[in-house]
């Protein structure tokens, strides 16, 4: 029997509302006990003094690009970036090539993941074939193959009739439908948030109303169908409000927000850096504050990275041609620690939004340090300062607006099923 004790840390277990000093005993890859002063002969000891010990993060929104775009990222590199960022599990979006709209693709992803991934991989399957927004995918077969949710992320299902069918049908497999809510007719080629910044930059604006309209539509369709709706990357104050009201009404809706929408605004685009281009775009300070408040008040359930790698040559073009999206896995924790430092959210609550609540929405293991749970654990130093160098990161791509910046807060170690797969001094330990 292998035994590991993580000792002397501040344990944060949102699943049991526990925040206090304790040791964590791991036996054969599972949590055995969390209590003060654990002594077990022959156990390996990890000194966690000065660090937070929490359930490892789970990202319900990332793009790992395999199959088909391995030059941007693959399951090996993306999962290494994940564990380096404190994530033991990630859910990868379906906009691969081919699209994950068929069980054979889901099988392929899971087989490759078993072989090469450093983190647990949960595929999200497409909601419609080819992400075309026309014909539903075989949700039952995809669910059986291992898909944890359904989404056409990156695209919006513009036909409300199709969207209704997707929601109705999803009830049969009891999985969330994740929506990228933007009215593309209103976006009309907009590449930055419409407002003072787009006016000054002379770049086509994308109004936040485009997001509000589709969030409103999808919330009404969720109410109509009773299905589980999950709103991806909420970025507008209007969307936060709509979700708040729908929740009060009892609509089954959950929502996520990205670190970049929590901590950056459209001002970041002033230098025309294409690493500030994403969809939905970085918005105004008012929107950012609404997203932060929404997260802290529980209107928005979780933080998700929308990790979207693109090769340097794809981003080194003009702002309109550049593909939207930025890296997120390796910087998520220090970036969102801004909310703790500004006293907007407690450490325990932040951990809940990075793990426990995500596991609940996806209905996957993890997000808890309860006895018997897999020992997916992260050790965090909330004060440690370091400089993020995207070129030295684990992702194959470098498209980050935080490249070269000093970060406060560092992942010290990530454990998956009791094994240390990442340590800040030694790097990723999976080969």
């Amino acid at each position: 029997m292998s035994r590991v004790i993580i000792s002397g840390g501040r344990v944060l277990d949102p699943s049991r509302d526990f925040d206090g000093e304790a040791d964590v005993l791991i036996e054969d890859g599972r949590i055995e006990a969390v209590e003060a002063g654990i002594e077990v002969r022959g156990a390996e000891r990890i000194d966690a003094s000065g660090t937070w010990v929490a359930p490892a993060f789970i990202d319900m929104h990332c793009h790992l690009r395999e199959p088909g775009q391995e030059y941007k990222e693959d399951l090996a590199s993306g999962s290494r970036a994940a564990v380096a960022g404190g994530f033991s599990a990630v859910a990868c979006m379906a906009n691969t090539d081919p699209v994950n709209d068929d069980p054979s693709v889901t099988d392929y992803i899971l087989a490759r993941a078993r072989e090469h991934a450093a983190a647990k991989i949960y595929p999200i399957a497409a909601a419609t074939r080819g992400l075309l927004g026309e014909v539903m995918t075989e949700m039952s077969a995809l669910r059986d193959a291992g898909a944890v949710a359904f989404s056409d992320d990156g695209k919006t299902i513009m036909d409300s009739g199709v969207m209704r069918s997707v929601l109705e049908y999803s009830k049969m497999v009891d999985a969330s439908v994740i929506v990228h809510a933007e009215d593309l007719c209103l976006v009309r080629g907009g590449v930055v948030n419409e407002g003072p910044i787009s006016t000054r930059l002379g770049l086509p604006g994308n109004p936040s109303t485009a997001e509000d309209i589709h969030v409103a539509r999808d919330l009404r369709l969720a109410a109509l169908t009773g299905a589980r709706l999950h709103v991806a990357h909420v970025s507008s104050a209007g969307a936060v409000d709509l979700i708040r009201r729908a929740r009060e009404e009892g609509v089954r809706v959950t929502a996520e927000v990205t670190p970049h929408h929590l901590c950056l605004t459209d001002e970041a685009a002033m230098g025309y850096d294409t690493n500030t281009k994403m969809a939905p775009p970085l918005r105004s300070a008012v929107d950012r504050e609404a997203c932060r408040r929404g997260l802290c008040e529980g209107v928005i359930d979780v933080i998700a990275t929308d990790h979207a790698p693109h090769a340097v040559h794809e981003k080194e073009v003009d702002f309109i041609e550049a593909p939207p999206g930025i890296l997120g896995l390796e910087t998520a924790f220090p970036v969102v620690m801004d909310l703790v430092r500004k006293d907007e959210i407690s450490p325990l609550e932040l951990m809940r939004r990075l793990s426990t609540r995500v596991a609940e929405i996806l209905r996957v293991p993890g997000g808890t340090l309860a006895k018997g749970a897999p020992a997916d654990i992260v050790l965090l130093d909330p004060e440690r300062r370091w400089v993020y160098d995207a070129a030295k990161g684990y992702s194959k791509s470098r498209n980050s607006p935080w490249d070269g910046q000093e970060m406060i807060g560092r992942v010290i170690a990530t454990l998956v099923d009791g094994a240390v797969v990442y340590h800040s001094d030694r790097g990723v330990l999976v080969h």
Partner: protein
Amino acid sequence: MIGRDLLSIEDLEREEIQKILETAEKMCEIGRRDVKKVPTLRGRTIINLFFEPSTRTLSSFEIAGKRLSADVINFSPENSSLSKAESILDTAKTLDAMDPDAVIVRHAVAGVPKRIADVLKAPVVNAGDGAHEHPTQALLDMLTVYQEKGQLEGLTVAIIGDITHSRVARSNIHGFRKMGAEVRIAGPPTMLPPNPEVLGVKACTTLREALDGVDVVMALRIQNERFRGACFPSIREYAATFGLDRAKLRYAKDDAIVMHPGPVNRGVELAHDLTDHRPSVILDQVRNGVALRMAVLYLIAGHQSEAGRFA
């Protein structure tokens, strides 16, 4: 001396604008000589890097460079089938390796000259980027108004047309405001930017309101190929509501002048006779464009020249 690059009017100080205009005034004289050439930039290389088709601005920069005796090379990647696969930055870096003394950049997307300037050794002049800025156009417009009115301070300028998609409008708004003029914009609401207040202008939705008592009327070209249907229902309706003719011009001051960056859609932005005759100063703008660009090239690429050699 102005800064290394000329990327936008928004970044310029009033004193820098003043300096460029004063230098351009002196350059005007060269264009009136029999031999329109001075040795100021002899041995200097200027590259016109135009990713977007242009005849007027390109010719103007080329003549300006040649009148200063620079070697001027025009490079238009859009005309070359090979360039499709080459990135903008690769193209720019390739040209930079040939050690030019200035690179003039035009591109259909906002921000490209800035991104190029970030990586180039040579100074960069923005010759128009998307709907962002067209600084030399605004400077030549200010020069023209200055020559007509003797000052810029205290004037009122109305800019009419598709403001949202106009780099000429943005540069002129910043420029005239920095020089102490008041700027109004007017056009169908679909063509006005969402937050005109960040530009410091008053937005009007009728021509009458915009023209009331102004010193300068600047009409913008309607890009009907791009925006028909999206921003206005028909040319006929645009011409009727925002097209200028002598009758509508009566709302402006008696001595108001009419400007247009060209090329004019006759009968749309400007009535035919208004295009060709005073108070229109369109050809003065074109003429001043050469002198103004000579001034910019001199100030940017001629910094090691002996002062005053052009004179």
